[in-house]
């Protein structure tokens, strides 16, 4: 079965976790990547991070004793999912451009 489309929030979270980041860092990174368009709310991020850990797409790293903030990083499975989603999005963009005549 082909993978279901990811939500925008999940796509950007996976993209942000190429390096370990804590929750606030993810929100800031997603904001920067999307030029401020996507503003992740704390409750939405919390639910998404828990679901992604359960699915094995990201790992929760041991808590840093200095900052006492939990960091997350993408797993191999997560990378594969992200790549598949990128292919799906490319297909959408290519078809859109072909039919509407854009470049």
């Amino acid at each position, binding site marked *: 079965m082909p993978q279901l489309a990811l939500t925008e929030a999940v796509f950007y979270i996976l993209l942000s976790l190429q390096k370990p980041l804590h929750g606030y860092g993810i929100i800031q990174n997603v904001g920067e990547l999307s030029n401020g368009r996507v*503003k*992740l709310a704390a409750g939405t991020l*919390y639910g*998404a991070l828990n679901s992604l850990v359960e699915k094995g797409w990201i790992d929760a790293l041991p808590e840093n004793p200095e900052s006492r903030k939990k960091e997350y990083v993408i797993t191999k499975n997560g990378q594969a999912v992200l790549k598949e989603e990128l292919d799906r999005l490319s297909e959408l963009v290519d078809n859109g451009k072909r039919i509407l005549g854009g470049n």
Partner: protein
Amino acid sequence: MRRVIHKIFWVWQLEKEQAWINEMASHGYSLEHAGRLTFEFEETEADLYTYKTLFLKGWADSEENRKYMKFLEEMGIKVVCFINYPGACWVYTRALKADYPDGIDLFSDIDSKINGMKAMSGYMIFVMAMTLFAALLNLWCAIGRDYFSPINFICSISMFVLFTLATIATVRIFVNMGKLKKERTIHE
């Protein structure tokens, strides 16, 4: 300077309560503690904080809720106080207005908004069932026996009023949830 205000908000008036607390904050009174009928404010500079009241399933000190509150603290959203009710808790949080100028929004997509509403609607159904049971029990005690009991009759009427208000609030939640579900068919 501390200011104590006695005020009642029912379980379905979470947003109204939050709007009132934020209005107090805009006048320089920041919430420091809330009880079931009492709100304690500390005089601070106006608009220093923005507040958000949360409904959470389970008690505030459950492992899951403690993890969630710790996560919120990492986001700069601090827990001011909480009140435990049977099977749920109300949590009063705040953040610096400078960090959250548009207020604290906990859900930024439709699915998480729907999940938040589902949890609230489940609890409201529980409240409806309890108030209806209390209303019917008091009604039976008032008129179902050999003598008429005015106290039970008044209690029964009060419970029916609460049941009706809870029902209206629950219907509103379901209507809003329906609108969001419809929206989700075309948008995320």
